[in-house]
């Protein structure tokens, strides 16, 4: 069994040959002026479900833009949400 440890990734260890998939989150490598996040990131930081985030976007209560088929939410929207929730 070959063991792979990946640093600077969202997960720390991959056992090669186990069928597990290593996740490398590119957002951790963005420069400090990154201002966008995914629905999942927003949900994690806001402590709510992804469905709730999508519902807020659909209802116009959360600012977001489309990149491809994904919503991208500005950092400021998270700050506003946390202040008002």
């Amino acid at each position: 069994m070959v063991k792979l440890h990946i640093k600077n990734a969202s997960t720390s260890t991959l056992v090669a040959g186990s069928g597990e998939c290593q996740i490398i989150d590119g957002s951790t490598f963005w420069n400090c002026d990154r201002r966008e996040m995914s629905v999942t990131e927003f949900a994690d930081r806001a402590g709510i479900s992804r469905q709730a985030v999508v519902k807020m976007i659909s209802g116009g209560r959360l600012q977001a833009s489309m990149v491809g088929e994904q919503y991208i939410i500005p950092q400021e929207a998270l700050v506003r949400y946390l202040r008002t929730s």
Partner: protein
Amino acid sequence: MEVSDLILADYAAANERGKFTLVGAGITEINAIKLPCIHPIMFLMVRVKVTRQDLGRNRFDIRMIGEKGTVFKAEGNLDVPNEHEGEQLIPMPMQLVNMKFDDAGDYSVEVRINGELKQSQNLKIKLIPSPQNAA
């Protein structure tokens, strides 16, 4: 230790017996209607050939580099135990999420083992007119 395969795909998975599955394999271009763009998810299948000469700790480095710098870089250790026998091909699927591309142009995914570049795969980011503006 060598890298036998380095493939970008829409989806990749592997089982514990070394068999892997790819869907939408062979990504070489991504079209973006505006920049910077964030590619939410894609997979990178890295398959390494491990032999008894690779026993112990090997340094593993994977990075994506563009014309203006690094998009991401991940480093780690690949440990081959002493009881490893023969030559083994090990697939390692990697899920790349939230890859941000600031500029159009050529990018390269590079895999290094013990500091030596083993494989690279090119990826081109192209800016295309949005459907609304093209009308």
